[in-house]
């Protein structure tokens, strides 16, 4: 068969569209876009080249339509978002394609998205409040990144209400159990010498992290009191069965404890007149006033609450 020059006999327009563009994406995060190119004549466009270009004209990615549908072809494309936060508009091109006797014209469409900072959420727990003035205050500082970055080794500081730094540290290397990415550090600090409620704040320095992070300081509060001088043993029983009640929450003044298997909570408390409260789910709440003048044992019987 003699070779003849191939002639293009038909020209088809194409139309490109982009779906699943995220409104906002974390810096450096993955964007999964769906690109669809259609031909009004219903041609199979599998293999058609696709190019993604940024606003400067620099190429971001190149790929080909990977599957065909009744009126063209489509592609699921994963792109890495820029590292710098801001507004972005990129353009997707379907490149002109000649096959046998059909010329498919190229087409393009713009799409926009916002790249945002990763945000670090700081939290403080396990605060030993109330704490005797000058005693060791235990706190645990934790942080998590909204994009799940590792925060291992993230430096942080703790400041008092006047802005004086009272402690500094780094988050540990392990992820807190049950979490996807909370890194933490336990600290022992010197409690202030004055009695009262103290509002301190934890701040972190994310500048060394790979992507831009914003971190909001986290306030936490604790209370200092005169060092407790008396031991109060509270024994909690079920009024009817006379059996000890575990897991009852006991408070004498500001001091709290939880009863053990024997129904006993031992609290170190300051002297003086204060409220004794005992509560346990499923039982009636109990409250009375006690005058603590020395070491004491107090027996409390709780009636079953009217559950229904």
């Amino acid at each position: 068969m003699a070779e003849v020059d191939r002639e293009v006999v038909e020209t088809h327009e194409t139309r490109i569209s982009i779906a699943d563009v995220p409104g906002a994406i974390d810096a450096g995060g993955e964007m999964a876009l769906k690109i669809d190119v259609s031909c009004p004549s219903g041609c199979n466009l599998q293999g058609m080249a696709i190019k993604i270009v940024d606003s400067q004209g620099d190429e971001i990615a190149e790929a080909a339509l990977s599957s065909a549908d009744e009126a063209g072809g489509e592609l699921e494309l994963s792109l890495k978002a820029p590292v710098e936060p801001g507004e972005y508009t990129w353009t997707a091109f379907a490149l002109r394609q000649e096959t046998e006797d059909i010329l498919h014209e190229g087409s393009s469409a713009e799409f926009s998205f916002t790249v945002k900072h990763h945000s670090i959420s700081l939290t403080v727990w396990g605060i030993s409040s109330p704490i005797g003035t000058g005693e060791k205050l235990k706190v645990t500082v934790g942080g998590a990144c909204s994009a799940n970055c590792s925060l291992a080794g993230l430096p942080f500081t703790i400041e008092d209400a006047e802005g004086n730094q009272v402690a500094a540290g780094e988050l540990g290397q392990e992820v807190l159990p049950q979490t996807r990415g909370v890194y933490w550090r336990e600290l022992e600090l010197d409690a202030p010498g004055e009695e009262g409620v103290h509002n301190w704040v934890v701040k972190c320095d994310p500048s060394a992290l790979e992507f831009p992070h914003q971190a909001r300081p986290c306030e936490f509060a604790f209370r200092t009191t005169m060092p407790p001088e008396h031991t109060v043993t509270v024994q909690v029983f079920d009024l009817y069965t006379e059996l000890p009640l575990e897991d009852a929450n006991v408070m004498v003044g500001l001091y709290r404890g939880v009863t053990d298997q024997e129904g006993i909570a031992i609290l170190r408390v300051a002297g003086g007149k204060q409220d004794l409260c005992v509560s346990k789910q499923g039982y009636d709440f109990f409250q009375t006033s006690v005058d603590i003048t020395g070491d004491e044992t107090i027996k409390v019987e709780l009636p079953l609450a009217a559950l229904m």
Partner: protein
Amino acid sequence: MHASDEKRISRRSFIKGSAIGAAGVFAGSMLSPGAKAQQADPRIPQKWDYEADVVVLGLGGAGASAAIEAHDSGASVLVLEKQAEATHFSNTRMSGGVFHNPDPAGDRKALVEYVKAMMCGKNIPWKLEGEQPHVSDAMAEMYAEGVMEVADFLLAQAPDLDRKGMAPGGKASFPMFPGFEEAKYGRTVFCGYKDLAKADPNLPLYERPRLTKGSGEAFHWALVEEGIKTKRPGIKILYETPAKSLVQRPNGEVIGVIATKDGREVAVKAKKAVVLATGGFEYSVPMRRAFLEGPGVKGWCYYGALANTGDGILMGIVAGAALSKVAKSASRIEPAFPYGEPWEKLGLKIGTMSAATSVPHSVIVDNFGERYADEHIITDSTRPYRYQFYKEAVKYDMLNMVYSRVPSWLIFDETLRAERPVVNMNISTVGYGFLPWSRDNMDAINRGWILRADSLEELAQKIQADPENRQLMDADRLAETVRRFNSYCALGKDEQFNRTPSTMGPVEKPPFYAMKMYPGGPNTKGGLDANADRSVLDWNGNPIPRLFAAGEIASVFKFTYQAGGNLTECIVCGRQAGRNAAKLAPWG
């Protein structure tokens, strides 16, 4: 009949009233009353499949009490129960099994006043609802009489019940009501078998041996297993026999019931009377839609019997009964979860009882992320609010035009998650195995029933992504709410809502969790109107002959309610209905 203070109903007016009451329903047959008396009424069966003097519909606490009392008054009794015997879970059985036992040393007159205040508020100058002038005085008298016998009635059925748990004493719920001090109405008391304390606490109550039953299981066991099956085998029970309609004569008189048994209709003749004790409408979609405030179907939850679909209320409506305060619920806010496709299609979730509503390391917020109440009033039975809290939860945010507290969100932290199950695993829908739950709560978390996030901000995003939040959650507000609450914990005082300090504890340790809470609770309270005799009333306030009602279907507590009130009235009103039903002369 008992005479009402406000309306003495003589035999003559009783008959006249009945005819008037029936007119609306049987207008067609009233055209020439009497003229066609000899002609067979197509609504009256030619042949009866079963018969008894008194036919009781529903075998919960009220039905059982009615059956026992009617039997002991000399009547033959047949009970129709829609559930199967092996899976018979009445609301009584699924409840906490608590009731009222006023101190006999209390003043009787004061007791009547106190009860009247709970029932209708008639004697409270500031009361705003609960009006039942046609029944209030006689009803309070009847109840004041009956309530003193509840404990003894239970013990008479089941001598192994522990009298100690039933001991009168303590403070009743409403110190602001007339007669509070002198009545010595007392705290809610507990029903359990003597050996309950020896039971393995890790077993659900219903799995413990017979003698160690507690809560609603004890109540059910005492009345149904001991009171009826053991002590009164003459009371016949037909399980899996749902009643469908009442058989009425043209004058409105109820003479039987049409029910379904083994896939066919059966006619049950009630020679003396029918007692409706079919419970509330907790799982009726149309009734929830019709009666409950706000999103009544999707936005409410109940944790009692799934069989309570308002059957008796519907039968009563068709028979010309008046409705009374139907929207009332013994409710607060409780969690609810999906229960299989058929229920989800209807929009219904299944409720259960929270065990974390006012414990340390948790707060409850609205859809915007704000706390709106002292969480402890939801669970504290020593204050008057627990059973009215649903009114707070269905509050309409007029400016935003949303029910901003439906659902509410229990926000808690890892400390609480690890410490205890956040739902009650011993009773209700978890206790009876309707909902799966693991003690560490992880099963519910892995199912997505409880949301989990590393930070409060991420938790807020997850809440916002839940369609029921309608994108109202504000991450900053939620974080600020928790920060403020945590500072109150350090201070030892909740400066916003004055929550009980021992119930507080900071929400601080990641991960953080969110569980949806809906208005709801154990049961609905409103339904058919009924008088002190427990005769069902028509819209003119006149009794429908030979029709009685007791229990949730026609609760006497129209104004407010102390925990255990519904079980108490099951016995008081069930007995009253059974006794009055048995007293009637048979019609044929």
